[in-house]
């Protein structure tokens, strides 16, 4: 079946959208620096190399098969007819992006943007599984993410799939809304990170005999905080390009998107700094950085749909949420997540999705969607967002867990425990990141 394609973009919109997409690599760079800075010295080079390899595998896999499965409104897709309603569940395009004219059309801009987006989603588990995930296993797991999990869910949200049509088919507001990828990118990446943390287990020496976690601080806070600044620029591009391509925003409304993105990040970092100061007596740099990133992750879904005050509130909640959940997950759930990726991306993303249902500016959504306000019962939009969250928890998490569990059976994903104490750099690369700059003489020999 071939749904009606969206309207063609004006040339100025195309140029602007391409410029926004060109900012996306900065989000990758930011996330890479954050992941590396929050891991220990002994695995720094491995972390950066894994970032490049994972981004490469994600882009190639998505080019080969991902985009054909994700599709785009107007491109062919597989549908089921259930009681007279069409459920589009999978794209039916050609592999290797054949049939997609790379000429500046909406479909081609989407394909370009998605190559970066899938790489960004694939970097999220790297932070959670840092210091103990084999390079080969990272790449194989990324291929599963970029080839199966990501395109499938992204089709449902951005490819004209059944979640996007909840409004049209069942009167639930405008259907599931996510302009910048709180669900498709952040939550999918965060839930994959959760699966990896479970499958790999904690780092050696993380928990003592009583099950209490030990602090294993990252090796470079400056990298982490600089990564946050780069991530902001990248996220501006991500949210703005997503709003134009997936929410039909005119170029002028990207100002609202940028304001909302910045306010959400600002609110989140201030909330995180204040909360950690209240809890520990002094602001915590790494948790504040987590707060900043969580604010960005939460901002994406509603950046085009909520007023600026709501974006600030979304950020304040995100920043507070992350400081409590990182510690709670580590102490109570036994999750050793060095970058806090599960809290930041999975919970932050889910909070962002929910916030679209809580603070919708219906007129703004209607303008963005180029449609009249639909006759929907109160709460319809909120319910559509809840259905999206239920899909993430009830489908995406079991799928990504099962795929990685199977992969682990055939190709063990964890670095052998005896080698872990030397660090991933020595075991996998044969040399450390800073061979002539030893800050601690025992760094490579201690637990």
């Amino acid at each position, binding site marked *: 079946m071939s749904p009606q394609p969206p309207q063609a973009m004006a040339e100025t919109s195309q140029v602007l959208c391409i410029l926004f997409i060109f900012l996306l690599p900065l989000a990758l760079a930011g996330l890479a620096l954050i992941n590396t800075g929050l891991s220990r010295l002994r695995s720094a080079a491995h972390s950066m190399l894994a970032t490049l390899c994972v981004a490469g595998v994600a882009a190639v896999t998505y080019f080969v098969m991902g985009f054909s499965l994700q599709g785009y409104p107007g491109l062919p897709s597989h549908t089921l007819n*259930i*009681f007279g*309603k069409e459920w589009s569940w999978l794209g039916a395009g050609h592999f290797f992006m054949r049939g997609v004219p790379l000429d500046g059309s909406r479909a081609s801009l989407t394909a370009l943007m998605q190559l970066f987006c899938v790489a960004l989603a694939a970097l999220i588990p790297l932070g959670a599984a840092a210091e103990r995930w084999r390079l080969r296993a990272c790449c194989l797991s990324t291929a599963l993410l970029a080839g199966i999990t990501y395109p499938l869910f992204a089709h449902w949200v951005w490819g004209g799939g059944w979640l996007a049509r*909840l409004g049209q088919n*069942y009167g639930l507001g405008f259907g599931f809304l996510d302009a910048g990828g709180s669900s498709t990118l952040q939550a999918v990446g965060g839930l994959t990170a959760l699966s990896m943390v*479970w499958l790999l*287990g*904690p*780092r*050696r*020496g*993380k*928990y*003592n*005999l*009583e*099950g209490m976690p030990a602090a294993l601080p990252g090796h470079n806070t400056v990298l982490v905080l600089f990564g946050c600044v780069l991530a902001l620029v990248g996220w501006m591009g991500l949210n703005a390009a997503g709003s134009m391509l997936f929410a039909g925003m005119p170029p002028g409304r990207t100002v609202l998107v940028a304001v909302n993105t910045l306010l959400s990040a600002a609110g989140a970092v201030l909330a995180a700094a204040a909360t950690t100061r209240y809890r520990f007596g002094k602001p915590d740099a790494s948790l504040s950085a987590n707060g900043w990133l969580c604010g960005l992750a939460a901002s994406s879904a509603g950046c085009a749909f909520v007023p600026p005050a709501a974006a600030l509130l979304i950020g304040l909640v995100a920043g507070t949420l992350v400081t409590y959940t990182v510690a709670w997950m580590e102490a109570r*759930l*036994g999750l050793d997540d060095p970058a806090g990726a599960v809290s930041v991306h999975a919970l932050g993303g889910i909070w962002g999705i929910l916030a679209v249902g809580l603070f919708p500016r219906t007129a703004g959504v209607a303008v963005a969607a180029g449609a009249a306000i639909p006759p929907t*019962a*109160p*709460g*319809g939009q909120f*319910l559509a967002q*809840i*259905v999206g*969250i*239920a*899909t993430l*928890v*009830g*489908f995406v*998490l*079991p799928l990504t*867990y*099962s795929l990685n569990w199977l992969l682990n059976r055939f190709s063990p994903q964890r670095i052998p425990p005896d080698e872990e104490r030397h660090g991933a750099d020595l075991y996998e690369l044969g040399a450390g990141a800073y061979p002539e700059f030893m800050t601690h003489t025992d760094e490579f020999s201690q*637990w």
Partner: protein
Amino acid sequence: MKITGLLLMPSGWFIVLAALVLLRTIPALSAFVAAGMGVEILGLVLLIRSHLTPKGGNE
């Protein structure tokens, strides 16, 4: 416990999907979506419990 949790989560999702297809009024739909989410959360709790780090540490 792990397998049960993994099976419960999609079961909850199917309840949500079934509610979408079969129910028309928002209150009824909300109730069944909430029920489906409840089943999913139950599965998630089981999955979390199956991965709790046993006492004894990982030294």
